[in-house]
């Protein structure tokens, strides 16, 4: 009797796993590409979920979009599984485009209508004309915005935001992580940088503004548990507003100073 129960239980478990529509691991990433003429457009709005977003300058007057989607694997008893429904949704996904006025809004549209926030990782690579302003928001991950002149609005829940622009206003919000911003403009107009729990620092034409580093120059000197804010006014045209709830917010205008305080923070991270 016991042997029959074991055999029956094993068969039932196998059937249950099959009925759950799962696949073995190894779900291939799905790549979508599209090119959109940019005539008449001035702004890009992009809302991603977890993953990575890279926005840079296009060589022509078009928006070039590549989206790679990878299902996040779930592990049961050490076996990586993927749900059939999510795979079907990923394979049937399309890049949604909404043109409203001078703004192009991009998103991913799944056939089921689900947003797959938690089980599909998105990697966006977007090229836009240099004149564009960019409004990008994501859940968790990494966001890099490079080269645009029309202003940047970047929001991330957790992770890293790296912005390097030749000019333009910058608005950044990050709940936890690092907000690393460089503008090649000579001077800003109004600047405010704030970290509620962490460090907010500014490098302006080679001069450091922010809390002094601890006297001990070791690893602990980079930790700054209580927050601070830095506010400056200059004669430039571009305003900047950066806020991080927990983490590091750093902004640089102009070249690095040779002996600048906390110099490493302001270096250009190649991404």
């Amino acid at each position, binding site marked *: 009797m016991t042997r029959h129960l074991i055999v029956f239980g094993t068969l039932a478990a196998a059937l249950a796993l099959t009925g759950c529509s799962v696949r073995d691991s190894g779900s291939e990433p799905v790549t979508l590409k599209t090119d959109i003429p940019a005539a008449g457009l*001035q*702004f890009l*709005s992009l809302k991603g979920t977890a993953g990575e977003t890279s926005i840079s300058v296009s060589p022509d007057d078009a928006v070039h979009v590549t989206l790679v989607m990878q299902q996040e694997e779930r592990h049961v008893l050490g076996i990586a599984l993927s749900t059939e429904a999510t795979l079907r949704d990923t394979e049937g996904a399309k890049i949604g485009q909404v043109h409203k*006025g*001078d*703004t192009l809004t991009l998103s991913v549209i799944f056939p089921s209508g689900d947003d797959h926030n938690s089980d599909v990782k998105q990697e966006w690579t977007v090229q836009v004309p240099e004149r564009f*302003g*960019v*409004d990008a928001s994501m859940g968790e991950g990494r966001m890099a915005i490079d080269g645009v002149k029309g*202003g*940047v*609005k970047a929001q991330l829940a957790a992770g890293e935001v790296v912005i390097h622009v030749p000019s333009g*206003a910058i*608005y950044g*919000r990050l709940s936890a992580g690092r907000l690393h911003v460089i503008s090649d403009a000579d*001077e800003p*107009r*109004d*600047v*405010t940088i704030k970290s509620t729990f962490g460090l907010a620092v500014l490098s*302006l*034409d080679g*001069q*450091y*503004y*922010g*809390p*002094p*580093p601890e006297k001990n120059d070791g690893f602990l000197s980079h930790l700054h548990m*209580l927050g*601070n*804010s*830095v*506010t*400056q*006014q*200059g*004669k430039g045209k571009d*305003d*900047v*507003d950066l806020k991080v709830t927990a983490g590091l917010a750093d902004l640089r205008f102009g070249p690095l100073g040779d*002996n600048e*305080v906390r110099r490493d923070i302001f270096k250009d991270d190649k991404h």
Partner: protein
Amino acid sequence: MNKTTAVLVAIIVLLVGSFAWYAAKHPDRSSEMRDDTEQGVVGEDSRHVGPRTLNADIEAAGLDTLGLQVRVGELRVTASHDDEVHVQLTLRPKERSFLGFLHWSGGLSHDISAASIHQDRKDKRLTLSLDLDGHDQDEVKQEWDVQVPVRLKLDSVMNVGEMDIADVAGGVGAKLDVGELEIDVPQGSIDADVNVGEIRAKSASSHHGRIQLASNIGDATLLFQGAESGVHEHGGLGNKVSMDGDGPDSMDLRLNIGQVTLHLTSADAAHKGAGK
């Protein structure tokens, strides 16, 4: 130590000493930056010159508007217990530094010792500002603590810093270049304009008029008792929220870059505003 080394050491000591003396006498004004770092190198309280506090109690009879003009610092406005304007202004010379270790005060003691509260009374308007006898106001951090009869309208202007306005019922006008503006009023119109930073406003008015919130780059949020409301309009990198109303308390809050939030707390206001 041979003679050459001794001469070199003497020259180095002389150069460092000269630089330190020069830096102390000539704070950096080359870029005409104004700073208001809350903590740290630039904005720490003076270590060389202590703060100075000025006080004034001014009869408000015949007035309907109080104007305040502040360059760099903090402004806190609350209700007065009588029909007078009570002012406490604390001045602190700002400190600058070089390489994180060499500190000097931007505003010297003679700047602060010459300070007074300037009163300009025209018709029904009283305007207060700092008179520093011609010295550079950007080298002094101003901390204003002002108590105002609630019936007065407030009209405040600040370059850099934090404004915190509470209890004023006669209407609020606030203009700030960069920083944070907080408003918490029982009623009255609000006209707020911030270039960079944040506006957090709360009104208990039950007779609001037209409400407009706008951020050119950033977010604008209108809350009725915690719930998002209003008509939203997205354009470029910014947001606008508006709501109609037929009451006298119009509210217009504008930001160039940053976040603006208005919270209407009156249940009556929520009822009137719903669906408009």
